[in-house]
């Protein structure tokens, strides 16, 4: 019992991943459900990576699709044109995304709030336009099909959904370990200090610019790997799905819906929005298309109105309601209230 209390994150992590590993045996039977599982886990992985910048770092990137697309396109182009294994391609994609992130990150460290959001947002769309334009290389709007070969691990192509499911789960596991290690590390403390009050952090000797740049680059490289994964899984990539606004919003929405700046929030949120979106799509398929867009929009509005802390804050609220409010260290709710009351404009 004391082990569980002391290492609750590790304990619950093992439980969650162990249960998730058995899902294909009893719940996710059949390729449709397993495919849905892959989509949900990929969304969760992307949200975990985004959360490093957007949650722990407190900087709302709305252009992470840029790195997702760079990862997907780098490995796909290397495979299609030079027959390079997608595993090597994934590393190359992470390298490309990392370099781009360093360049973009270092010229944007001074931008705060909405200005950073706008630059990242527009940057991903700039890349989308370039990918559309370079038809000779990328196939333009039509997209690029990755040739199906004899499935093997070496070229990251597999028969059936089950192997993809476990590969996705492995990716999520690694991303979670990375996030967990970061949160616990001195770097994690510097990151949160920078988020909470950049001036105080600087006064304490934190090199805020360096911290921002490092976490941005790391997050970009993780997202790039997921880009390669999804391109190989779908054997197809096109500018809209790789660099589009929807991809960026999905990553951010998953993390925020679950609880930005928490370890498990992005996992819960990423899985939840995929399930909600798919549920709405199937349920309303006959009446009209675009039902999943309405659901995404409604979730966004609902979170904005009632649950800015995400589902994670819901858990806290329920606990407070049952056990009475206790003073906790680093209370998320009171922290966000404090930031809000500094907002400036008045409102009754």
């Amino acid at each position, binding site marked *: 019992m004391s082990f569980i209390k002391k290492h609750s994150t590790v304990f619950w992590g093992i439980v969650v991943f162990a249960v998730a590993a058995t899902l294909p045996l009893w719940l996710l039977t059949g390729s449709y459900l397993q495919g849905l599982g892959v989509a949900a886990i990929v969304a969760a992985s992307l949200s975990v990576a985004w959360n490093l910048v957007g949650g722990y770092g407190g900087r709302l990137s709305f252009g992470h699709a840029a790195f997702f697309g760079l990862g997907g396109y780098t490995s796909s182009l290397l495979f299609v044109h030079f027959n390079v294994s997608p595993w090597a391609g994934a590393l190359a994609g992470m390298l490309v995304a990392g370099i781009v992130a360093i360049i973009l990150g270092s010229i944007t460290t001074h931008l705060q709030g909405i200005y950073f959001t*706008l630059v990242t947002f527009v*940057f991903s769309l*700039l890349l989308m*336009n370039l990918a*559309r334009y370079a038809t000779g290389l990328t196939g333009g709007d039509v997209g690029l099909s990755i040739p199906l070969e004899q499935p093997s691990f070496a070229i990251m192509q597999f028969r059936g959904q089950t192997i993809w499911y476990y590969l996705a789960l492995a990716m999520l596991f690694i991303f979670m370990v990375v996030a967990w290690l970061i949160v616990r590390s001195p770097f994690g403390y510097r990151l949160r200090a920078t988020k909470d009050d950049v001036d105080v952090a600087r006064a304490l000797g934190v090199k805020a610019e360096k911290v921002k740049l490092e976490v941005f680059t790391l997050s970009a490289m993780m997202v790039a790997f997921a880009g390669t994964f999804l391109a190989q899984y779908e054997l197809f990539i096109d500018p809209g799905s790789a660099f589009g606004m929807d991809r960026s919003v999905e990553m951010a929405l998953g993390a925020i819906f679950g609880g930005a700046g928490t370890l498990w929030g992005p996992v819960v949120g990423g899985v939840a929005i995929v399930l909600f979106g798919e549920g709405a799509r199937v349920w309303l398929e006959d009446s009209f298309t675009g039902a999943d867009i*309405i659901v995404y929009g409604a979730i966004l509005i609902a979170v904005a109105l009632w649950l*800015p802390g995400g589902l994670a804050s819901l858990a806290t609220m329920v606990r407070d309601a049952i056990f009475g409010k206790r003073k906790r260290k680093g209370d998320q709710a009171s922290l966000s209230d404090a930031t809000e009351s500094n907002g400036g404009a008045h409102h009754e």
Partner: protein
Amino acid sequence: MELLAQTLITGILLGGVYGLIAMGLSLAFGVMRIVNFAHGALVAIGMYAVIALYRADVNPFVSLALMVPIGLLFGALLQGSLLNWVTGKSELRQLLLTLGFGMVVQAVLQALFTPGQVGLTGFAWGSQLVQVGPLYLKPAHLVGFVIAIVIAIAFALLLRYSALGRQMRATVDDAEIAESSGVRSKYIYILAMGIGTAIAMIAGGVLVTYRPAIPTIGNEFLLIAFVAVVLGGLRNIIGAFVGGLIAGVMQQLTAAFVSPALQDVGLFALFILVLIFKPAGLFSRKGETV
């Protein structure tokens, strides 16, 4: 040389409407401190409203006048029912709310009309090129530009000389001081959102006279409006109109001299450069910082 002149004139004519859209976005940001990611959706609503009215046999230019009361009402309702919950709250919540509202609008438009292109079928007025000296113009572009200029000037006069305009400018400059000097900010927010929405919907109505609409078209205008507003300085409403003109010219120059497929790339690159090196806008007041 003629190509350059032709490009510039087309860019300015199209840029006028962009400027109009940008003014609405800038107004919402200046007065309420809300970066409205649903602003493009408001333009799209204007386009589809004019299409719907045209199908009911209303002349598009008559519909433009109807956009004023409809837009005022819709914007006021939007502020009163949704946006007031996040006005003055964290940027994150504003972003989520306006983004979500934009997505809902997009999906509703897609369900009501089709996901494909819809235009004013049979309304071809002003789409033929007319030769003026060595240059060619589309009368529809010219009319759109004139409407944009008239509304921009009317709005600038309203801001400059009316009591309401003074209160709005006071709120833009310093919301707290304005409030303490007796400006009822809640009332100003509702009016500002109404005016901004009406302007966006008129711009949509102008646009639909020379180009068809698709449900996702709002995103395109949202981006152009962001670019224009950033060029002009986020809180500079007149600067936003000028920013729109620059955006239009920049787009046409890239299209003519580089490639039409890259017209937005030039615009976005300009946007990123301005945000990074001169984040308070090209016409920022001295000492103003981000």
